[in-house]
C-alpha cells in the first residue's frame, strides 16, 4: 500500500524539461542559443482554416477541363517593367553566405523552370544566382553588403528589407564558420569573424525618409524596376500603410514562422506575430487606402503546401514566398541523412544549427566538401517539382470553390477551426457566422 502514500513524480509545466535544459545550457556556456529557421511553437496557422468548397449556391469548376489561372503581375503601380510570374509562389530572400553557391544555383534553376522569381539576400548577388534565375529580386538591406548600382540595374526588382518575420527589429548574423574567403570578400569583412549586420538602414529612418530612398532607387534605375518593401510581422496594418505611402510597388509581409539563417532563439520565439494574424491587417491597410491589388501583397512565413498558398490568397495576398519549404525541397533535414545528423547531436527534422556551417545536406554551408555533395541540377528539379505540386494543389482548391483564377479566392471561401484562428483571420468559426471581434454573436 505504500505506493499510495507518495505523490507520483510530477514534472512542472513551467519548468519543463525543455526549459530546464535551456537554463543548464545557458549556465554552462554563457551565451544565448543561436539557431536557424523560424518559430517552432505551435502557432495558429493555415492548418486552422478550411475551405468551404462549392455547394448549391456556388458551383465548382471542372478539374482538368476548366481553366484556373495562376499568374501574377508584381510592380504594376510605378515600375516601367513590372514582373509577370506564371505562379504566385516565389522564393524568399536567402543569402549567399547563409546558403552555399550550389544551393543558390538550385533555387534559381527550380524557380526559373517553374516560372517564378528568386531573391538574393544579405550577401550580395552572385553570378550563379543571376545566371540561373530568369527573374531575380535584389534585396536592399541595412548591411548593404556588396550593394552596387550595376546589380541594381541587372535585377528584375528591388526589395528594400526593413525586417523579417523571424526577427522583426533584428539584424542579420553570420558566424565565423561561414565567413569563407569568398563570403568575406563579397561582404568586405575580415575572414572568420562573427558578423553582425545592422538592424536599421544606415541612411534613412522612418516613412518619410523611406519615400526619399525609394525615389533615389527609382532614379538610379530609371524607374524600370518594381520596388518591394519587406517587413516582419510586427505591425502589419501600419507598416503596410506606411510602405504604400512611401511609394512601394509591392509589400512583403513575413510572419514569425518565416526562417532566418541565424539569430537568437529567444528572438525567433518571442518577437513578431504569426503569419495568419498578419495577412488580414495588411490587406485591410491596402483596402483602406484603395490600393488592394494596386500595390501587390506577398505573404511569407510557414507556407508549406498548395493549401497554404490558397488560404493566404483567399485572405487577400497576391502571392506568397517560401524559404524554409524550398530548403526542405532541396534536401534539408532529409531523413536519408539521419546518420550525419546524429553525429551533430540532432536528428532529421530538428536540425537548425545552420550557422555552424556543418550541414550534411550541403545547403547551409560554405564547406567545399559538404556543398560538393549537393547537386544543383537535381536540387533545381526537386524544387521545380515541389512548386508545380503546390500550384496544382492550389488550383484544385480554387476550382472546388468555383474560381477561375487563384486571385478570385476570397475570405468567404474560408471558415476557421478555432476561435483564435477565426479572430486572427477574420473568418467565421466553422458552423457559425461568428467572427470574434465583429458585431453579431455565434448561432
Amino acid at each position, binding site marked *: 500500500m505504500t505506493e499510495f502514500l507518495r505523490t507520483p513524480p510530477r514534472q512542472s509545466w513551467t519548468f519543463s524539461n525543455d526549459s530546464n535544459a535551456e537554463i543548464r545550457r545557458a549556465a554552462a*556556456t*554563457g*551565451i544565448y542559443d543561436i539557431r536557424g529557421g523560424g518559430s517552432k511553437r505551435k502557432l495558429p496557422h493555415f492548418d486552422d482554416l478550411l475551405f468551404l468548397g462549392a455547394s448549391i449556391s456556388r458551383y465548382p469548376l471542372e478539374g482538368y477541363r476548366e481553366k484556373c489561372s495562376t499568374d501574377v503581375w508584381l510592380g504594376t503601380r510605378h515600375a516601367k517593367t513590372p514582373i509577370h510570374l506564371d505562379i504566385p509562389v516565389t522564393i524568399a530572400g536567402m543569402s549567399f553566405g547563409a546558403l552555399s553557391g550550389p544551393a543558390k544555383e538550385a533555387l534559381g534553376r527550380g524557380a526559373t523552370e517553374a516560372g517564378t522569381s528568386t531573391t538574393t539576400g544579405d550577401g550580395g548577388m552572385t553570378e550563379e544566382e543571376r545566371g540561373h534565375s530568369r527573374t531575380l529580386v535584389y534585396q536592399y538591406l541595412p*548591411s*548593404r553588403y556588396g*550593394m*552596387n*548600382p550595376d546589380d*541594381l540595374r541587372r535585377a528584375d526588382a528591388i526589395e528594400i528589407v526593413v525586417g523579417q518575420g523571424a526577427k522583426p527589429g533584428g539584424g542579420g548574423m553570420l*558566424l*565565423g564558420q561561414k565567413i569563407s574567403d569568398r563570403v568575406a570578400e563579397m561582404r*568586405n*569583412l*575580415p575572414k572568420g*569573424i*562573427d558578423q*553582425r549586420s*545592422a538592424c536599421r538602414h*544606415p*541612411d*534613412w529612418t522612418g516613412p518619410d*525618409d523611406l519615400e*526619399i*530612398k525609394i*525615389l*533615389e532607387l527609382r*532614379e*538610379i*534605375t*530609371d*524607374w524600370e524596376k518594381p520596388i518591394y518593401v519587406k517587413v516582419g510581422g510586427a505591425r502589419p496594418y501600419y507598416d503596410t500603410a506606411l510602405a504604400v505611402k512611401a511609394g512601394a510597388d509591392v509589400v512583403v509581409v513575413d510572419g514569425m514562422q518565416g526562417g532566418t539563417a541565424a539569430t537568437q532563439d529567444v528572438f525567433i520565439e518571442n518577437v513578431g506575430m504569426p503569419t495568419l494574424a498578419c495577412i488580414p491587417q495588411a490587406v485591410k491597410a491596402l483596402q483602406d487606402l484603395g490600393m488592394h491589388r494596386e500595390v501587390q501583397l506577398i505573404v511569407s512565413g510557414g507556407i508549406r503546401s498548395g493549401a497554404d498558398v490558397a488560404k493566404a490568397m483567399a485572405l487577400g495576398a497576391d502571392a506568397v514566398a517560401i524559404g524554409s519549404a524550398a530548403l526542405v525541397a532541396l534536401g534539408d533535414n532529409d531523413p536519408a541523412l539521419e546518420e550525419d545528423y546524429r553525429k551533430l547531436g540532432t536528428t532529421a527534422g530538428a536540425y537548425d544549427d545552420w550557422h555552424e556551417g556543418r550541414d550534411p545536406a550541403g545547403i547551409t554551408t560554405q564547406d567545399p566538401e559538404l556543398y560538393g555533395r549537393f547537386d544543383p541540377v537535381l536540387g533545381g528539379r526537386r524544387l521545380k517539382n515541389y512548386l508545380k505540386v503546390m500550384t496544382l494543389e492550389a488550383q484544385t482548391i480554387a476550382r472546388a470553390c468555383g474560381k477561375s483564377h487563384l486571385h478570385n479566392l476570397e475570405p468567404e471561401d474560408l471558415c476557421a477551426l478555432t476561435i483564435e484562428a477565426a479572430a486572427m483571420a477574420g473568418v467565421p468559426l466553422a458552423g457559425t457566422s461568428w467572427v470574434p471581434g465583429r458585431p453579431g454573436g455565434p448561432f
Partner: protein
Amino acid sequence: MLHTAELTARAPATEGGVRVIDLSAQGLRALNQALHDFKARPSNETLWEVVNTKGAHAIAVGVDAPLDITVRGTTGYYCAGMNKQATIRIDGSAGPGVAENMMSGTVIVEGDASQYAGATGRGGLLVIKGNASSRCGISMKGIDIVVHGSIGHMSAFMAQSGNLVVLGDAGDALGDSLYEARLFVRGSVKSLGADCIEKEMRPEHFEALEDLLRRGLAEGKADPSQFRRYGSARRLYTFHVDNASSY
C-alpha cells in the same frame, strides 16, 4: 516629366562648353536620365552644371561616366548616390546621405553635409569642406572621406574599410563596432564607441594621411603629425560572454 529627347531639344546646348540643366524647369527625372544616357552615348560634352536645385533629393544619382558635374545650390537627400567615375561638386551644402554607397569618382561638398555622409561608400573620395553631421561614414566599405571641419556623433559606426580623415573634432561614440576602417582625427574626440581604440601612427599611416590630405584638398591646412589614428580593437570580432555588455 520630360523624356531625354525633349530635354536635349530644350536644354541650352552649352554655355561656355558647359551643359547647363535647370532642375526647377526640367525636372529631376530628365536630369538623371540624361546623365545615365551619357554612358550609352558618350560625347565630349563632359562638363555639366545643375542650377536651381532648391534642395531637391536624388540629384545626379547613379552616374556611371567620367563627367564633371557642378551642382549649384543646396541639395536634399542622397545627392551623388552610388556615383561611379564622375566628379560631382556641390557648390552649397548637402543634405543627408550625400555620396551614399559611392563606388568610385569624387564628390566635393563646398559647404556642410548632413547626416550619413558617404554612408556605405565602397570607393572613391568624398571631400566635405565644412562640417559633417552625425553618422558620417556609417558602414563605409572602402570609401575615403576627408572632412575639413568637424563630424557629429556615431560617425564611422560599423565602418568596414576605407579612411575617414577629420581636420576638426569628432562627436560621441566615434567608430562604434567598427571593423577595418582607419580613422584619423586632428582635434578632440568626445568619446570612442565600443571596440574603437587609439592606435599608433606608424610611417605608413603618415604616408597614407599625407596622400589623403592632398587628394582631399586639405594640403597645407593640416599636417599629418597633428593627427591621431583610431581603429578596431577587434575584441568584438567573435562572440564572447565577457564582452556581452559591449554588444
